[in-house]
């Protein structure tokens, strides 16, 4: 008997891609730009952003659901990717405006004057008029896109190398990753960090060179790009988790000491996964923030990465479609509740205002899922697919902290 290969698992990948394609087509046909104007441009943007969140949830599922490493810092890589993309967007857009403004002057503007003008425009808000060193590549789209991969990738590589080689595991690693994202966020809050402090980068929805194209069209283009990225990400990650590599990382999740004695460098694999997922998260951020229009250091708050883990837990860890469903469902529900559209509940003595109470509801749902339905939404699919959990008298599948629980496993 051959082991399950990528092709044998292709069925769920094909179903996923088909669903994603249908969804994309449906939204396009209902958009203001390309069909019956049934849904607003801002909702198209919300859906596009949601697809990016699904992509970062896939990365989280790979590192936590498959390899058992509960990283609570992956939204830092997502936001860093966004910052890197935002730098180019802001630079190039401001350049257009400055060149236009200087064109009215009697003498043609020198390159120096233009650069000075851009710097004053961008950094006036933090009382500076010079480009910090980290903006060195912001003038060039390809260089800055390379930075969007390299900066989060290198940070993950260095952080991961330090953490994994000291064999930091379990809850200690989670705390360390929380500290990383918090430290980064506090650093970026400073005005002299070079990224405009708490103002962050704004106006990112204006794409340089596409000033004539309306937001209704741009929103759909970004929606397509996000759907494509999610589809490709899904195919790539389902390849990664199938075959022997998938076997090895699941083995690391359940019993990493045993994997070492098989001759696999557990630290090397963890570092590989940590860096790979950081880069995927960064790419998702590159697509997310032009749709959001603004990025500031609050995006790197520790809570953001905890949400990410909650999405994957509610969707059901250890299966890729679970992560996507969890992220889409919870983040859309969250924007409905916090957007003030959910009706308040008057109790007479007190009115339940969902903007305030949504977090309590989410926290309660998270606890309930963990206790009573550890398979999350994935458990609903098991009713159709006939997948059952093994009977292990409550024993986990391995001795490690992140190992699969009895109810999460497949018999």
């Amino acid at each position, binding site marked *: 008997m*051959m*082991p399950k290969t990528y092709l044998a698992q292709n069925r769920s990948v094909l179903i996923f891609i088909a669903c994603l394609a249908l969804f994309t087509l449906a939204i396009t046909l209902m958009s203001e730009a390309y069909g019956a104007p049934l849904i607003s441009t801002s909702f198209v943007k919300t859906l596009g952003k949601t697809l990016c969140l699904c992509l970062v949830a896939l990365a989280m599922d790979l590192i936590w659901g498959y390899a058992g490493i509960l990283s609570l810092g992956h939204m830092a890589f997502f936001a860093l990717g966004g910052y890197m993309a935002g730098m180019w967007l802001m630079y190039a857009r401001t350049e257009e405006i400055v060149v236009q403004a200087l064109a009215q002057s009697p003498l043609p503007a020198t390159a120096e004057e233009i650069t000075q003008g851009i710097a004053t425009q961008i950094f006036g808000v933090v009382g500076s008029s010079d480009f910090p060193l980290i903006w060195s590549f912001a003038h060039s789209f390809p260089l800055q896109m390379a930075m969007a991969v390299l900066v989060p990738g290198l940070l993950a590589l260095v952080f991961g190398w330090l953490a994994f080689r000291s064999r930091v595991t379990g809850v200690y690693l989670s705390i360390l990753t929380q500290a990383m994202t918090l430290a980064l966020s506090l650093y970026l809050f400073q005005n002299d960090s070079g990224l405009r402090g708490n103002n962050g980068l704004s106006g990112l929805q204006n794409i340089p060179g596409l000033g004539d194209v309306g937001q209704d069209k741009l929103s759909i283009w970004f929606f397509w790009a996000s759907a494509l990225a999610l589809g490709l990400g899904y195919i790539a990650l389902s390849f990664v988790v199938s*075959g*022997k*590599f998938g076997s090895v990382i699941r083995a690391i999740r359940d019993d990493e000491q*045993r994997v070492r004695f098989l001759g696999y460098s557990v630290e*090397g694999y963890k570092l590989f996964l940590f860096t790979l997922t950081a880069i995927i998260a960064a790419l998702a951020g590159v697509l997310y923030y032009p749709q959001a229009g603004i990025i500031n250091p609050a995006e790197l708050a520790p809570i953001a990465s905890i949400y990410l883990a909650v999405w994957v837990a509610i969707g059901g860890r250890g299966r890729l479609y679970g992560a996507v469903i969890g992220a889409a469902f919870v983040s859309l529900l969250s924007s409905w509740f916090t957007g003030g559209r959910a009706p308040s509940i008057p109790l007479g003595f007190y009115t339940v205002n969902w903007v305030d109470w949504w977090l309590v509801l989410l926290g309660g749902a998270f606890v309930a899922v963990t206790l009573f339905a550890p398979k999350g939404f994935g458990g609903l699919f098991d009713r159709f697919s006939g997948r059952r959990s093994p009977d292990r008298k409550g024993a986990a599948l*391995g001795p490690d902290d992140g190992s699969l629980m009895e109810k999460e496993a*497949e*018999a």
Partner: protein
Amino acid sequence: MSALLEVSGVSVTFDGFRAINNLSFNIGIGELRAVIGPNGAGKTTFMDIVTGKTRPDTGTVTFGERSVSLLSLSEAQIARAGVGRKFQRPTVFEDQSVTENLLMALKANRSPWRVLFWKPKVEDMARVQALAAQVGLADQLARKSGELSHGQKQWLEIGMLLAQEPRLLLVDEPAAGMTLAEREQTTAMLVDLAKTRAVVVVEHDMEFVRRLNCKVTVLHEGSVLAEGSLDHVTANPQVIDVYLGRG
């Protein structure tokens, strides 16, 4: 007989307790050796040192014809150099099938990139079939290893060790928790294994050691007390005093 594994002058202390005290001995190529000793004699610590789990305070451990020092290698590197280890409790990956467990153990490049693009060839699957047949699991290949019985898990772990093709196999109390029939099968398997590689068996059970019919090293308080045939060491008054006298 030239030495495959040379342990010399090794000492290790845990919080002031000297678990291994100036331990020295050699294992030859293709030798079957039993290591016995009372609880706390340092048997498991000795295995931890050879496999890289514990670093000794002093001493040297070298392996192979080129006398590579194992002390500067990580656990994974030691495993790749050809040292396999069988734990006392069966440790297989319970969420994965017998085939997946064996494929993971199969000797091949272990680097992440190579593993990511690795595809099982026809001969790899044939090897998995043969290994499963050798340990009596030929009809269990598709089953999750978590569903196997205690004894079957032990066989699977031995199959995984064979797949690794180690030159030295360290086996920790293989007879623990086994029925008489299973013990006999295990004895035969270990003797068979020792024909192609060196096997060190750490054991508690004298009857089991007698059946292995090999050279015996007696450990006591972290160093070698006696060495020789089982009859030779059991005649040693010191051994009787510290070990047999109690049992």
